């Protein structure tokens, strides 16, 4: 069993390796990207992440239900069939801050990630793929958030 200190050391090594191998885009090597996580729109998020103008593309897929029974947990996913995707992002247009999660990929993982996000209300959800050359593609889907339970 690992001790806590060993775990921390290990974790630091992992991040160090990522940086040294040059596998991370510039933004991720810095601390958490506060500008991107405070941006309100798709365009501003992408800009803060250092990407070019986003274009809708069939090569990106956003997954999620049409209706969410509860906005606190909405399963969403981003994937891309294009080669050389460096980063996948998930955005909720109508949340106070649009960006929910950003995944920096290496060629050792598939360009296909899933997580669960909070949605304050019905909204468009974007899956965004950033390529090595800064090209940005996205797909969008509307997810309806319903009220449920007795609400007492």
């Amino acid at each position, binding site marked *: 069993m690992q001790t806590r200190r060993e775990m921390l050391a290990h974790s630091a090594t992992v991040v160090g390796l990522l940086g040294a191998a040059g596998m991370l885009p510039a933004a991720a090597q810095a601390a958490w990207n506060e500008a991107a996580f405070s941006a309100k729109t798709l365009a501003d998020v992408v800009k803060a992440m250092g990407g070019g103008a986003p274009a809708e593309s069939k090569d990106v897929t956003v997954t999620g239900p049409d*209706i969410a029974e509860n906005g606190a947990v909405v399963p969403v996913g981003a994937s891309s069939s294009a080669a050389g995707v460096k980063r996948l992002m998930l955005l909720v247009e109508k949340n106070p801050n649009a960006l929910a999660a950003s995944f920096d990929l290496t060629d050792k993982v598939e360009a296909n990630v899933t997580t669960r996000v909070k949605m304050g209300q019905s909204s468009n959800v974007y899956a965004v793929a950033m390529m090595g050359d800064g090209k940005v593609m996205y797909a969008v889907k509307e997810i*309806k958030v*319903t*009220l*449920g*339970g*007795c*609400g*007492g």
Partner: protein
Amino acid sequence: MKIDKKLAGLACAAGAAVLLAGCATGPSANLDAEFKAMLQNSFSARGIAKMDRLDQDLGQAACSSAKQPPEAVLKQIEGEALASIKWPTGGQYFGDWTRADKLAQSGVGMAWNNPTTDPKTNGGQCYNCHQIDKKEISFGTIGPSLYNYGKLRGVKDVTDPKVAPIIQYTWGKLYNSKAYAGCSNMPRFGHAKILDEEQMRDLMSLLLDPRSPVNQ
């Protein structure tokens, strides 16, 4: 029947001496007494929800089993409920449907964690059980759909004397639903002081005003 007696017999055998008197009066009376004692021992007053909420009136007691009460009892409940209805002050049945959606959506109110029983802080609970505005897809089905409620009943002008009966019935149903169905599942919003007159007027407009989204 046979099972009931056997059960009660064993319950008496297992029960404490104080219950023996109950056993003598018959199995169901004994179980009733044990049940009442269990409620008192199991619940505690918390916040606005005091122990008197366990006390039943005639209707609550009569409608507390899988079977409907006898016709005569139902008639008595309905009669008393009808007599309890307070008709709106000055005959003013209508308010503002634009304020009513919030009321219809909200399921808040009267629970132990709510700070007060003031109706102004309560919701109408409507969507929990009814379809109302077609745009709201998240609606319950314990009660009937109220979509097009006024339209289906031919209400084109709420001041038309011909529609007065449906207006009065709707007010009465909101105020004390048991006037029209003794064991109705619907709360008695006026009678139990869950909503006040102004809130009920707004809901009347939501249901009956030809301009309300409900009647589009």
